[in-house]
């Protein structure tokens, strides 16, 4: 295993009390594997991404559990030692690439800085050659000119390509991509996803892709972990989870997706209710209040039960049939008059 996260819990201090953002989360990532962590806002998925390279400090949150990377427990390392892992072993792609680039320095300057500070023996000319190679790798046309551009002179998609070039510049073994395509329009989004997929094949990097978008997970991931209210509620191979979701929350997520070829003005099936308040999470199943299948037993906390060798779901009644979910979630409603 490349990465192993064990019993990770993250509590943020807030004025309303401790927020239990992530609760006893365990997850592993194999060499060259792409795993998607899917969930809505506030499900704790971004906290997991930030906690792995040690970016959540003790001053803002209490963290417990352990994180193992290539057999070393990196969660115990002091920040000075952790620094050596960052960039070289684990790197990160951010949602808003333009905001993640220094606005007063050219993108080439930032890339060269990354290459040269991490490899003192790299000559200026070889660093430049490597930078051009990286820009070509991520599909930036006219790389020589683009090296001298400032972030505000580049489009959003171009900034994301630069970000990816920066992230893979030191050949990391693991890439954490937090909503890498959310800020981009659809055509650029597809290009970026294809790029990420090509990169894993080419340089063998593993990817944890954090997203709220099931289609991104479908397009990219080998495995999917669905998060809800700080817990993984379903885990398994992407094809299986996305085709036959077992946990009612995952099913509900699918129901709330707009369908291609659906009626104009058709109501999307929103999940009723709100996610639980994480300052005082429910004792039992965290989805029970919103679940159409909830029974008395759901008042006690379900584990992440194994369903098959590779699949797990945090549910006492892992449902097979999407049809059944459909009847309960898709309460037929008269289509409202088209708005536009």
């Amino acid at each position, binding site marked *: 295993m490349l990465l192993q996260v064990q019993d990770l819990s993250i509590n943020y201090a807030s004025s309303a009390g401790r927020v239990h953002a992530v609760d006893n989360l365990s997850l592993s990532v194999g060499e060259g594997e792409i795993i998607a962590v899917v969930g809505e806002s506030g499900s704790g998925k971004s906290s997991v991404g930030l906690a792995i390279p040690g970016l959540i400090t003790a001053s803002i949150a209490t963290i417990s559990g352990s994180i193992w990377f290539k057999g070393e427990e990196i969660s115990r390392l002091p920040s000075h030692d952790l620094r050596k892992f*960052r960039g070289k072993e684990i790197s990160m792609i951010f949602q808003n690439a333009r905001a993640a680039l220094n606005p007063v320095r050219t993108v080439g300057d930032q890339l060269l*800085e990354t290459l040269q500070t991490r490899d003192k023996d790299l000559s200026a000319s070889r660093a430049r050659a490597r930078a051009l190679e990286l820009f070509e790798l991520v599909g930036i046309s006219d790389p020589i000119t683009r090296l001298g551009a400032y972030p*505000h002179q580049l489009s959003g998609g171009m900034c994301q390509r630069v970000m990816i070039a920066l992230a893979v510049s030191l050949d990391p073994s693991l890439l954490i991509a937090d909503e890498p395509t959310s800020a981009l329009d659809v055509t650029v989004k597809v290009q970026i996803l294809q790029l990420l997929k090509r990169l894993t094949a080419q340089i063998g990097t593993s990817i944890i892709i954090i997203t709220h978008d099931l289609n991104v997970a479908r397009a990219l991931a080998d495995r999917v972990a669905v998060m809800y209210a700080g817990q993984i509620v379903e885990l398994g191979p992407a094809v299986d989870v996305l085709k036959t979701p077992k946990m009612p929350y995952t099913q509900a997520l699918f129901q709330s997706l707009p369908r291609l070829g659906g009626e104009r003005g058709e109501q999307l099936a929103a999940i009723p209710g709100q996610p639980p308040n994480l300052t005082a999470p429910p004792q039992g199943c965290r989805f029970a209040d919103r679940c159409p299948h909830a029974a008395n037993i759901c008042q006690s906390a379900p584990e992440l039960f194994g369903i098959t060798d590779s699949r797990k779901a945090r549910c006492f009644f892992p449902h097979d049939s999407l049809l059944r979910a459909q009847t309960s979630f898709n309460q037929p409603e008269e289509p409202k008059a088209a708005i536009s």
Partner: protein
Amino acid sequence: MGSNIFAYSIRRIVAGVPVVLIVVFLTFALTYLTPGDAAVYLAGDDATPEQVQEVRSSLGLDRPFLEQFLTWLVGLFSGNLGNSLVLPQTVGEALLIRAEPTIMLALFAQVIAVALAVPLGVLAGKFYGGRFDRAVNVFAVAGIAVPPFVVGIGLILLLSVVLALFPATGYVRLEDGLLGSLGSLVMPAIALGLAQAAFIVRITRSTMKEVFSSDFILAATMRGFSEKRIVLKHVVRAGIGPTISAIGVSFATLINGAIVVEIVFNIPGLGRLLTSAVESRDVPILQGLLLVITVAYVLLNILTDVVQAAVNPKVSF
């Protein structure tokens, strides 16, 4: 880009000329409208109204307002600022001899202010909300609330009267040695610099706090850079813009502060010249001073914008 900056500066300087003329005209009008004039002052308390009138017409102060202003303006364009009504000097001579202490004081104070405020502001931004930050905040509030003359008097008591380290008042001119000159300015420069620093540190602290919590600093951290590199090459470089503006703006308050501080420390600079010229209604001196101050202010503003453009690639000309 270099020639761009040059053309831009020229354009800004040309645009500054009307500003200077308007300010000069307004001050001329104000001194004309306020009751009393230099004739009253020069003729003395015992003078009869006839004697005052005589002095007045000999100085040309009884001529119409516009005529007086135009005469002055014509003189200005031929490089002649006129004669002081009170001092035995031309305005140009008086300004020149008084400018040195003030420029030295202003630069010294500003160096102290920047050297103090920028590092404190950056660190306060880094440890925002922490104990260090709160201490800096107390300093910033105190520095703005306590006027420089109070600090000045405190420094005189401590460093001159009790410790006898520096002379309490007076100024050593540059031609008598740089060190002596700086030594005579240590206390006034600290008194003035602390107030300047308090203003600059507040701006620096809040922008640096924003930069420290920005995505690109998180991204830089994620690239494994050292703390030092992140602070110097990323945070400070990205967040220095507002600090540069603050330094520029603070030069304007420096002029106000210098007037008071020069009185406390008995420094024969432009500030002292200004107060005495107001007392004696020495209009040509006042006009000359206001002209110099306005021109300095306009030039500093242009300089600030040019430096700003040099550090921020988003600013174009």
